[in-house]
């Protein structure tokens, strides 16, 4: 009892927070650069509120994107070969879910959004905020749909793979996500889709494992195209490329599924927490994917 160590609690000061309401992306960006680490962008504010409740103090400046109307639009483009839906980053999750084209073309998006938080939160939460969260449940769905995203970095608008954005945003905290494009008619096929989120209760729950799978098979049960993306908890969602490659152009058999099961355990690298271990997360993901594929052959 005598070897206790001495600690002094540091008194910290509560800050008053100022909210900015820029009307353009450029203006928002300039404000963000000006106040840099003393500012954050805020869209629906639902994640920020959650983090504040968890003890993260708000910075001195909040830069709201709410007044930038162009970020709230959803468009459908049909240009012959390339059809896509463009979703403004500030579109609410509820708006996305209820949009007729999204509902028709991407049931997997609807499925994914339905599993996020609760109806009232989905009314405020934006798709951009969910992507920028880095571990949002929409990300596996977007990865499997080959979505591309556009962001503004102060000089220009960049359009690239979502996975690239997830890397870039870790380094440049000031970039603004503006748009998410999802190609329709996935590889020209009518795909089989599967999305599942597993949490510690049935609904309104952070994910332990989230998986999104899209594939097409021919009559001989050969896989002609496949995308598998997975995330959950603090794990950055990723495509399981080795698995996809393994499955591509092969006929689904029991033996193949056994190999794929092992491959998933190898390829998927989740992070554990006090509520679910890494090994549990791995086996749930492998179980879900293999069971889904198995149903295609029996």
């Amino acid at each position, binding site marked *: 009892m005598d070897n*206790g160590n001495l600690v002094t609690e540091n008194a910290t000061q509560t800050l008053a927070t100022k909210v900015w309401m820029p009307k353009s992306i450029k203006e928002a960006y300039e404000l963000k650069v000006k106040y840099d680490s003393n500012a954050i962008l805020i869209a629906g504010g639902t994640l920020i509120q959650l983090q504040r409740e968890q003890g993260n103090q708000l910075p001195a400046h909040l830069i709201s994107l709410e007044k930038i109307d162009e970020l709230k639009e959803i468009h459908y483009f049909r240009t012959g070969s390339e059809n896509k839906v463009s979703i403004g980053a500030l579109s609410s999750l509820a708006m996305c879910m209820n949009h007729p084209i999204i509902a028709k073309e991407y049931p997997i998006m609807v499925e994914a959004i339905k599993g996020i938080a609760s109806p009232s939160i989905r009314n405020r939460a934006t798709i951009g905020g969910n992507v920028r969260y880095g571990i949002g449940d929409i990300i596996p769905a977007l990865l499997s749909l080959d979505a591309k995203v556009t962001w503004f970095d102060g000089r220009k608008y960049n359009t690239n793979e979502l996975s690239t954005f997830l890397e870039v945003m870790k380094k440049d905290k000031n970039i603004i996500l503006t748009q998410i494009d999802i190609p329709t008619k996935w590889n020209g096929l009518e795909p089989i889709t599967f999305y599942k989120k597993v949490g510690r209760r049935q609904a309104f729950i952070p994910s332990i494992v989230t998986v999104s799978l899209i594939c097409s098979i021919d009559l001989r049960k050969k896989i002609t195209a496949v995308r598998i993306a997975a995330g959950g908890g603090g794990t950055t969602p990723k495509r399981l490329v080795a698995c996809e490659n393994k499955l591509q152009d092969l006929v689904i058999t029991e033996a193949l599924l056994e190999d794929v*099961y092992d491959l998933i355990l190898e390829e998927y690298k989740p992070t554990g927490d*006090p509520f679910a271990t890494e090994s549990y997360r791995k086996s749930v993901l492998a179980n879900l994917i293999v069971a889904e594929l198995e149903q295609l052959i029996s």
Partner: protein
Amino acid sequence: MHHPQQSNAKQKKIRPDGRSKVTGSLKYLSDLSFPDMLYGKIVRSSYPHARILSINTEKAEALAGVYGVITHEDVPGLNGFGIITPDQPVLCKDKVLYVGDAIAAVAATSIEIAEQAIQLIEVDYETLPVIDDPEKALKEDAPLLGKDGNVLHRAGHKKGDVNKALDESYVILEETYQVPRQMHAYMETEGGVVVPEEDGGISVYIGTQHGFKDRFQLSRILGIEEEKIRIISSPMGGSFGGKDELNIQPYGALLALKTGRPVKIHQTRKESMISGLKRHPMKISVKTGVDQKGNILAYQAKIVADTGAYATLGPAILDFAVEHATGPYIIPNVEVEGVSVYTNNGVSGEFRGFGGNQVTFALEGQMDRIAEKLNLDPVELRRRNIRKATDLGPLGQRIAETDGASNVLESISKSLQIKQQKSKRSETRYTVRGTGIALTMHGGGLGYGRLDPAGGRLSLTEKGKIEIAFGFEEVGQGIIAVIETIVTEELGCSPDDLSILIGDTKYVPSSGSTTASRGTSMVWHAMQRMKEPFKRLILEKAAAILDIPVMQLQLSNGGVIASEGGGTFISYEVIAKSIGDKEKIVVSTNFDFPTTPDEIDSGHFLYAFSGVLAEVEINVLTGNVRVVALDQAVAAGPVVNEMGYVGQIEGGGVMALGYTLMEEAKMVDSKYVTENFDSYLIPGIYDVPYKMNTEKIEKLAKGDPYGPRGVGEIGNVAVAPAIVKAIHDATGHWVSKLPVSSEEIVTAVSQRGKKRWKKVIH
């Protein structure tokens, strides 16, 4: 006397306080505001175990908007609280024993300033080794947490010769059960306002389960007479035992007296989580011996309860656990030993079920495991060992005759048969289903040797209202509907004639605590005592005015009428007006909760029973368990208010479903990992069966004079073992640790490595 056997189940009354609660228009005490009100915040310990070297409040006091800062130096009376022993410091002086320990508090003009101020209070600590587990606390060389060591309380019960009986047993089943730290999760966190009064006293607008007890404890802390303290304590947004002990009242009171202004404190969920009581985590090791036919010969149980840093009702909870360890079964040889141990974890205390849930999980777990070992139907095994109506209680004490145990067993086993026929047919490729039942027997009231007074007061007010006053609190359980139903039924008047008065020590008589499933029962008992004298006083008055013999009159809607009919009527208002100041009509009663005539400490007398049926669906890919059916058969005497009754059983059931599947206030190194509802999970609507059935068995023993038993706890007690049996039925796997781990289930459904998912394909 009233015939309790008569069913009142038709009573589907709407709760008088229902509408305002559902619409949100009702003002809780934590919603109140007063002129010049300040806001209080409490500094809680940064460490679960540390010495306090110094406390510096200078900077906080200098902050604009701060009107008062208090530390241990500002406690005029006893610096301690606790219903049994006041061992928890109001404000710690030199030592902290858990993360909820209070060190200082401030009152300021806004919550924000108060928050800022508490961050400016500097506390120097010397951290001490943390005891995060009762087993560590019991080691010889463990640092001492309590005044007299690390054992708060030991309790036990012995009967026959367990070791000999175990030796002679055909099968001995040994298992250790572990149950978690559950949070009450009431919607309204601890809060309210304390207002200083001109006479130097205070009015405390803060919810509690026992206003008079708070008054007593506060008077001890503040060093002022009880009469100068008024406690306004209803309505509250839930308690479930969690607000039985003092929580923020002392800080509000000290700050209000220091600043001379009303002070509001309303804890955030996180503050509530860190400082609030929890259900005792327990580890229960059991050995059960049984003969070839399924007669239980021996039951040996060792209970280790993690009581946390301070006592509160820890000793009583352990006593209750020991008494209920063998439940409704008659076992010739019993040895139960319980120990409640101090640790640096959060304070464990009062919680719906009061130690019964933990031991029932172990007892019923043993029953099902033995049935499997003997290849016997679990219902049949229970039937062979169940108590008969006139058997003694679990501690060998005489109890009110009751066949409730058999009644609920037979009722729930019928439901089980029906459920079993359908269950397996609903399985799918990746889901399996199973069913299970469990029983419990649960005592009401505080038990032999505990002060357990009750009472009530009936009067006719000047305005002609029949005023019924009790010291009970509305904690969300529906006591107002209960009072309205019982009083109108017993007197024959209408709800409009009533004025119900509860929750204010200035006006109500002392009726004891609103705990231990006693409210409904005590309202009924009080009315049995008061109704005749009260009726007589009113009728005599009416008879005099009307000049009709008392015998020919009766109480009715709005006034007194002639029993024969014929239009004779005199309103209560007119009767009231005719009464002079001196001859007021007031009837009151004081009595004790019925207890066993045998001198057996803590032994109960009135028991309620429940049989629970659970059906689960398990996803074999994820190990996720969903409860698809949760039905209960309850024997608790006549139903007073059907909706209230069903609400208690279903609500208790859902709370226990959470306990079984997801609720755990997880601590690592005696610090909470779950600090809010984002990680401390309670069931949502999707986790709850679409429909739950409650079978109400109202039958009482012939001539039973004790009326309705309370149902506040009974629906909460035997749910976990029923769910766990259902999981076993579905998967073949026995769970002995709660909450059920999906990982454990998914591992158990197949141990076959990569082909685990294949095993379920039939």
